[in-house]
């Protein structure tokens, strides 16, 4: 027994860790950054940094293109080289902030490059605002995924929970005489309804969780469309528009560039901030989080020390579903829209991708969701800054990036060990 242990330890020390994939990834970032610098067109780049009525107005910035592209591209290249050196020297994965920063600066350089030497303007603040706007439901969905998958419940039904939340939010707000806050209460309840079915079938009857999730999506789509056509379009006052008002936070909302983006939002978005921060802290710093992770990684061990595995799974599935349901409300009362058929249009699946790309952590999921939101925002505004690329191509990017991510480029992705496995005593 001891001999076996020593042997495995020895091989673990001797065997070098494969670093090909991170090296290829960071190498690519550095190469692209250099290419961007070398191909800067002559002329100026114009960047718009304000929107709306913040106190400090920044005039339209006109910079020489070489500088505007060169600086962020150079920073990206330097960060990528730093990461490369670190990977090769320590043979460990680099911290996430380094990857995010290198990618972020590269994106910025790329965007400025697009408008350089042309008459069009890069609406940077607008782009950030629509990124957050498009990413909000994704972040809710991805956080729901974190809460569920960390206890070992695969939640493919995020899409259904978002759709259910959007439906309940719109209908209840309309029936309450156009009070969006009542809808905000109803939306998580609808999400919990879907989540309860998921937990009931997958924990109580041990039906395969992927099957249950897929079928629940079909069920919710069928139900909401049935009621939309049968009731909402035929009866008055069932599907009116109502919108959560924006609540600008004093002082914070006056910060240039980021202030209006982050702090001139409605209650739903502030709730998102609170949920994300709370989850991040509690999952890794509290007794609850430790228990949750134990159930997801090694349920038998968790059971041995007295944690009720299936009860924890039930609770987390319901909690996660409530978060997703709340996120669904963003599609209707969060945007001031009435409910429409399949209004979520696959957001739940992108949220799932964000969860995986974020490596099952709240902060990672948030960053990944923002990235997906950015890709969508970019595809909406490509035409406005003079690029004739088909808008469908950037929309494909998130999914392809996730494909590469799960294939292991840029580090190993490992789900919670007990994911999808029912626990039977």
């Amino acid at each position, binding site marked *: 027994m001891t001999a076996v242990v020593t042997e495995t330890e020895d091989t673990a020390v001797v065997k070098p860790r494969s670093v090909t994939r991170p090296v290829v990834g960071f190498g690519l970032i550095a190469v692209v950054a250099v290419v961007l610098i070398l191909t800067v067109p002559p002329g100026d780049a114009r960047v718009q940094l304000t929107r709306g009525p913040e106190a400090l107005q920044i005039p339209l910035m006109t910079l020489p293109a070489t500088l505007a592209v060169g600086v962020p591209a150079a920073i990206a290249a330097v960060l990528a080289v730093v990461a490369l050196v670190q990977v090769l020297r320590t043979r460990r994965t680099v911290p996430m902030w380094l990857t995010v920063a290198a990618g972020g600066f590269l994106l910025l350089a790329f965007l400025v490059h697009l408008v350089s030497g042309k008459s069009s303007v890069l609406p940077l603040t607008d782009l950030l605002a629509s990124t957050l706007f498009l990413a909000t439901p994704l972040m809710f969905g991805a956080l729901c995924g974190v809460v569920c998958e960390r206890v070992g419940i695969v939640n493919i039904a995020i899409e259904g929970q978002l759709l259910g939340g959007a439906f309940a939010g719109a209908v209840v707000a309309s029936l309450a005489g156009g009070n969006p806050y009542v809808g905000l209460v109803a939306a998580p309840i609808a999400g919990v309804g879907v989540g309860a079915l998921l937990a009931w079938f997958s924990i109580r009857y041990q039906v395969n969780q992927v*099957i249950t999730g897929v079928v629940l999506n079909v*069920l919710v789509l069928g139900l909401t469309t049935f009621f939309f056509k049968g009731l909402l379009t035929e009866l008055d006052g069932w599907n009116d528009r109502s919108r959560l008002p924006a609540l600008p936070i004093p002082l914070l909302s006056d910060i240039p560039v980021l202030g209006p983006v982050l702090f001139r939002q409605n209650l739903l978005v502030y709730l998102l901030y609170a949920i994300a921060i709370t989850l991040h802290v509690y999952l890794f710093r509290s007794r609850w989080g430790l228990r949750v992770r134990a159930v997801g990684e090694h349920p038998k061990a968790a059971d041995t020390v007295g944690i009720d595995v*299936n009860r924890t799974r039930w609770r987390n599935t319901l909690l996660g579903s409530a978060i997703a349901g709340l996120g669904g409300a963003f599609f209707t009362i969060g945007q001031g829209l009435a409910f429409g058929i399949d209004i979520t249009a696959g957001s739940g699946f992108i949220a*799932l991708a964000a969860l995986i790309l974020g490596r099952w952590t709240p902060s990672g999921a948030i960053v990944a969701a923002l990235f997906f939101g950015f890709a969508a925002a970019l595809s909406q505004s490509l035409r406005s800054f003079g690029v004739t690329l088909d808008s469908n191509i950037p929309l494909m990017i998130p*999914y392809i990036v996730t494909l590469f991510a799960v294939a292991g480029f840029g580090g190993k992705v490992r789900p919670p060990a007990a994911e999808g496995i029912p626990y039977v005593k």
Partner: protein
Amino acid sequence: MTQDDRREGSRGPDPAVEDATPAAPAETGPDVPHAPPSEPRPTTSVTRRVLEDITSSSWLITVGAVVLAMVVGSVLILMGDTEVQATLGYLFQRPSDFFRESWRAISEAYLALFQGAVYDSQAPTPERRIRPLTESLTIATPLILAGLGLGLTFRAGLFNIGGQSQIVLGAIVGSYLGFALELPVGVHVLVVLLGCALGGAVAGAIPGFLKARFGAHEVITTIMLNNTSRFFLLWVLGTAAFASATPQVSPLLESTARLPLLMGPGFRLHLGFVLALAAAFLVWWLMERSVLGFRLRAVGANQEAARTAGMSVERSTVVSLALSGLLCGLAGAMLVAGTEWKLTSSVAGTIGFDAITVALLGRNRPVGTVLAGLLFGALAAGGRIMASRAGAEAELVTVLQAVIVLLIAAPPLVRAVFRLPDPAVIRRRREEVAA
């Protein structure tokens, strides 16, 4: 977890069985075969044995699930019917009105569903009366093909959610070959079918390769490919190669590229239905009679054991996903060369997802998949007529399908509702009697 399975009283078919039912072992996954009951013993009466075999059989679970789904559907019909709701206002004064209206709404809806799916007794000509049945078969055709493909991967132990992307890619390739080439009759349609199969197989092989080479989970990769293919299709439709007079619609396929109609121009039923049945037979032969099928099933049943026996788990992963893609690609061919004759952004509808439920309902077996495909095709065809005649929305059918599949996946739940005996318990008791 099994308290609810404990039945009280003696309302079941056999009190002795009820008492001997302490717990129901849970079925996991769609592919748990119900072991046949042991050989008859002289200790119990033949009648009782036959009754037990019937009440514990898996097809009765299916029937039970359909019945329960129709009950759920009835509730939805009532909730969506404004006249029924009007009677609720004076329910306590005249409850008979409510029940009469409810019965009218429910029976009208299900009658229209049947008329739209099988035989339309209201139609004026004999041709129009049997038209619903041929519509059901037409709609069932792509469902059967895609369901066969997905069921094949499920049996190989893989959760292929990517039917949609495989159908879409097949349809893109096939439709291009269909309108861009000019080939003689017969050859052209074959080329289109092959193109669709090839396109689908590539879309299936990608997640297979990613799983075999990098261990990427197929549920995630196939979902990602589904979404990629959606935007890829939109992009393709915008390119010059697919441009036609109407934006976002491809040119019509040449008449030589279309699947021949089986019953003349009055019906949409085409040769593809026969092909789907042939494919079902081939899949049965492949899975039950060939070495390759044996390998796939072995890997699906126990990966480690199959690996120890010298089988390549990686190869079977790629092969089964590529085969599934091939069949789903053919399902795409049924759409572009069979019914639509053109490529549109919504050409695949939700067939990729519906096919998952078809495969699950058919318990991943070819015969079951054909029957499940026919049922769902009939429901879809009937749903349209139901919406126009009885005013119940066609999406009721989607709900019915989802409920049926959910219940089929949880046999203990259906048994508990109908107080059916558990086959495992009967088997155990018989073994005890024999011993």
